[in-house]
C-alpha cells in the first residue's frame, strides 16, 4: 500500500495542530506497513529556482529531534518532497494579500519582530499574488509530481483546503482514488461569515473525493449538513497524540501559586473571553492562583484590556506566542489546562497537556470531547461552570490527581498506530471500490 500525501510541514517549523497531526499520522501509517510519499509546501524563497526537491527523511526527523530506537525501519517507508510555496496552515486569503502587498511595496520578506510576543512568516515574490493564485499554482506543480511518480502510489490523501486542488489534480492525472481530510471547516474558522471562495474549494474537494475523513463527529456533521456531502462518504477519524521517547525535565517552578493555563491562538474561535471571565470569578474566591494566556492572535489586545478592566492583571499573565520547548515548559508548569473553544473540530492540545499529567477542562463544543472521559467538559459559554471546574481542580487534590493519572492512562491509549490502522482499512476499501468502477 502506497499513499501520496499532501500534508503540512512538521513542527517545529510550523506550529499548530495540523503539522502535529500530519506527523503522527505519517509515522503511524509507516508502522502499519504503509509507504507514504509526503509532499509539503516549503518556502525556499527567491534564490532557488527549483520547484520541487526531495528531502531525506532522516533529515526531517533530525530537525524534529526525535530519532529514536527502531525508527530506521519507519524512515524507509516515508519519503519527503518539498514544493516551493509559501502557503502556511491557518492563513486566510485576506492575511495573505496583506503580506504580499507589503512584500511588493517594501521588499520585506521575513516578518519577524524582535518581539517575542509575535509569530513569524516568510515571503517571496515568486509566489502567487494572492492565496487563491498560490493554491492553483501549487496544484499545477502537484499534478507534475503525480505524473512523475506514476505507478508509485495507490491512493491520494490531501490535508486541509489549501491542498485540495493539488489532490484533485493528482487524481485526474493518475486516476487513483482521493481522500480529503477535514481538520477544520470554514465555519470553525470564521463563524457564520464564511469566505465563499474557501467554502467553495472545501466543497469541491469533498465532492471530488472518494472519501472524506473528518477529525470528529462534530466536524462530520458539519460536512454532511452544511456542505451537503453524502453521509456514507464521510468517516470520522479522531486524532491521537504522539509520545516522545523521553520527557524533558520539568522546569523549576518560580511561583508557588496554582497555575491555570490557556494555550492557543487568541482568536474568537478559541473562546479566550470565557477564560478571562471565569478567571475573574475564581480570583474572587481564591487568592493563590495565577492564570496564564499563552499565544497570540487578533483578539489579544482586546483580552488584555478586559483583564485590566477586571483589575486582575497582577494574577493574569500573557506569554505571547510560544514555540517548541516553551510550549512544553508551559504545560509542565500548569496545574490545570483549559480549552474553552467556541468551535474546535478536534483540538490536540488538551491531549498534550494530559500527557504532561495536567488535568484538563474542555468545551463540549470540541471534537476532542468525543474521545476523552477523564476531562471536565463544560459548555464554552457557561462561565460559571467553567469557574466551578477551575475551582474544584485547584482546591480538591483528590479530584485533580484522579484526572491527571486516569487522564494520562486514557491519553496513552490514543495511539496514532490505531488511528493509522483504521485509515489503512479505509484506503483498502476505496482502492477496491475504485477498481470496480
Amino acid at each position, binding site marked *: 500500500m502506497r499513499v501520496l500525501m499532501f500534508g503540512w510541514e512538521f513542527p517545529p517549523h510550523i506550529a499548530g495542530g495540523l503539522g502535529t497531526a500530519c506527523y503522527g499520522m505519517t509515522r503511524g501509517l509507516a508502522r502499519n506497513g504503509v509507504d507514504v510519499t509526503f509532499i509539503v509546501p516549503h518556502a525556499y524563497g527567491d534564490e532557488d529556482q527549483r520547484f520541487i526537491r526531495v528531502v531525506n527523511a532522516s533529515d526531517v526527523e533530525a530537525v524534529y529531534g526525535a530519532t529514536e530506537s527502531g525508527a530506521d525501519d519507519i524512515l524507509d517507508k516515508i519519503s519527503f518532497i518539498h514544493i516551493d510555496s509559501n502557503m502556511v496552515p491557518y492563513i486566510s486569503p485576506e492575511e495573505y494579500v496583506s503580506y504580499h502587498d507589503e512584500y511588493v511595496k517594501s521588499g520585506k520578506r521575513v516578518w519577524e519582530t524582535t518581539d517575542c510576543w509575535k509569530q513569524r512568516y516568510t515571503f517571496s515574490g515568486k509566489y502567487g499574488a494572492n492565496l487563491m493564485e498560490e493554491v492553483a499554482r501549487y496544484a499545477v506543480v502537484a499534478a507534475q509530481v503525480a505524473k512523475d511518480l506514476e505507478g508509485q502510489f495507490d491512493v491520494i490523501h490531501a490535508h486541509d483546503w489549501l491542498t485540495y486542488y493539488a489532490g484533485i489534480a493528482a487524481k485526474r492525472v493518475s486516476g487513483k482514488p482521493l481522500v480529503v481530510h477535514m481538520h477544520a471547516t470554514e465555519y470553525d474558522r470564521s463563524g457564520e461569515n464564511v469566505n465563499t471562495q474557501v467554502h467553495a474549494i472545501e466543497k469541491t474537494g469533498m465532492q471530488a473525493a472518494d472519501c472524506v475523513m473528518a477529525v470528529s463527529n462534530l466536524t462530520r456533521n458539519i460536512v454532511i449538513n452544511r456542505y451537503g456531502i453524502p453521509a456514507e462518504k464521510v468517516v470520522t477519524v479522531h486524532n491521537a497524540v504522539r509520545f516522545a521517547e523521553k520527557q524533558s525535565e520539568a522546569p*523549576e517552578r518560580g*511561583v508557588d501559586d496554582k497555575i491555570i493555563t490557556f494555550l492557543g491562538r487568541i482568536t474568537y474561535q478559541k473562546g479566550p473571553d470565557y477564560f478571562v471571565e471565569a478567571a475573574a470569578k475564581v480570583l474572587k474566591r481564591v487568592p493563590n492562583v495565577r492564570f496564564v494566556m499563552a499565544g497570540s492572535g487578533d483578539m489579544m489586545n482586546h483580552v488584555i484590556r478586559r483583564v485590566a478592566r477586571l483589575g486582575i492583571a497582577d494574577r493574569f499573565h500573557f506569554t505571547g506566542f510560544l514555540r517548541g520547548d516553551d510550549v512544553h515548559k508551559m504545560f509542565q508548569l500548569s496545574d490545570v489546562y483549559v480549552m474553552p473553544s467556541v468551535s474546535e473540530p478536534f483540538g490536540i492540545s488538551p491531549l498534550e497537556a494530559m500527557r504532561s499529567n495536567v488535568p484538563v477542562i474542555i468545551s463540549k463544543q470540541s471534537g476532542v470531547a468525543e474521545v476523552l472521559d477523564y476531562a471536565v467538559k463544560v459548555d464554552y459559554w457557561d462561565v460559571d461552570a467553567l469557574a466551578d471546574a477551575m475551582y474544584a481542580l485547584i482546591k480538591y487534590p483528590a479530584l485533580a490527581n484522579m484526572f491527571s493519572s486516569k487522564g494520562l492512562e486514557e491519553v496513552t491509549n490514543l495511539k496514532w498506530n490505531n488511528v493509522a490502522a483504521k485509515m489503512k482499512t479505509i484506503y483498502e476499501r476505496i482502492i477496491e471500490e475504485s477498481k470496480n468502477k
Partner: protein
Amino acid sequence: MKTVCLYFQVHQPWRLKKYRFFNMGKDHNYLDDLSNRAIMQKVARQCYLPMNALLLNLIKEHKGAFRCSFSLTGIAVEQFKAYAPEVLDSFKELAATGCVEFLAETYSHSLASLASKEDFKEQVKLHTAMIKKEFGQKPTAFRNTELIYSDEIGAMVAELGFKTMLAEGARHILGWKSPNYVYANAIDQKMRLLLRNYKLSDDIAFRFSNQGWDQYPLTADKYVSWLHAEDTPGEVINLFMDYETFGEHQGAETGIFDFMKALPATVLASGMEFATVSEAAKKYQPVAVLHCPHAMSWADEERDVTAWLGNELQNEAFSKIYGLKEKIAKLKSEDFNYVWNFMQTSDHFYYMATKWLSDGDVHSYFNPYDSAYDAFINYMNVMSDFEIEVDKALEAKAAAKRKSTKKA
C-alpha cells in the same frame, strides 16, 4: 523690566528589560542595563556635558546676570552615578556658581501626587534630601512630575513648606489671562505659581529645527524681539523645557547650541533680566488666584493627565502598584523601596498610552515598546514577581518575629 525665567527638566527612567512569565519567581533583575547605560551615555555625550559646559561659560561670562533653574530626578542622578559620573560633577560645578537653583520634585518622577498624600510627601522628602546632599541647596520651589498641578496638589506642596510651584500656562485654565505674571494657589494663597509660556517655550523645544515653520530659522535676535514685544505683556516669561531639548531632541547640527550661546547677551542687551524660579516668584506680587480644580499637566494638546492615566491598562497598573504601598511600608527595606520607587516612574505609564492620534509622534519617540499592550504585559510581569518577593520577605519577617517572641 521683564524677567526671563529659564528652567530645565532632567530625567531618565530606569527602563525595564523584557521580562517574561517564565522569569517570574526566579529572576529579580528587572532592568535593561544595556539600554539604560547606552541611552544615558549617549545623552550625556550629546546633551548634558556640552550643554552644562556651555551654561557654565555663560554664567562666568555674564558675571551672575545669567541665571537658570534645574530639576533633576533622583532616578536620573542614580543613573549619572552608575554610568556617567562626570555629568553629576558638571552639575555640581553649576551649583557652585550660585546662579543655578535646583527645584524639588518627587524622587522617582512619579505620579504619587495623584495617588496618595503620604507617598507624595515621602518621595518629595527623599528628593529634597538628595538635592541637599549632592548640591548643597535646600529647595524652596517645587516642580511636580510633568508639571501636574491642581488646587489641591498646590496646597499639598505648600504644606510641605515650599513657597513657589511651577505649572502649565494652559489655555483652558487661564482663559484671557496671561501666563507672564505670578499667580497664587486657590487654597493657600501664600503659594506662588509660575506658569509656563508654552508658546515661547515650544518655539525652542519643538519648533526650533522645523523647516516647515514659517519662522524658521529661529535666531536669538528674532526670539528676543518676541520676548520684548508689546504683544508679550507681563512681568515674568517662564521658559520651561526638557533639558534633553539641547543636543538630543534638537541635535547639535540644528544650531541649538549657538542659539543658546547667543541668547543671554541678547536678552540682557535688550533690557530684560534673568532670574531663577524662586527669585522671580519673590520679585513680583501675585496678580490673581488661579483656579484649577482638575489636574493638568504640560503634556499633549489636552494638557491633562490622560497620557499616564487615560486608559484601563494604565489605571490597572497604577492601582496595583500603589496597592503594594502598605506592604512596602511594613517591610522598611531599602532594597524593596528602591524597586518600588523606580516602578512608579511616570514613563512606565506613558508607554501604555493608547491615545496615538494627535500626539502620537511624541509618544512613540520616547517609547521602547512596540505597543501599549506590550508595555503593560511587561510591567505587570515585573510587578507580579516583585509582589511575590515582597510577600516572601513579609512572611520571613513575621516568622523571625514569632521566633524572637517565643524566646522572650
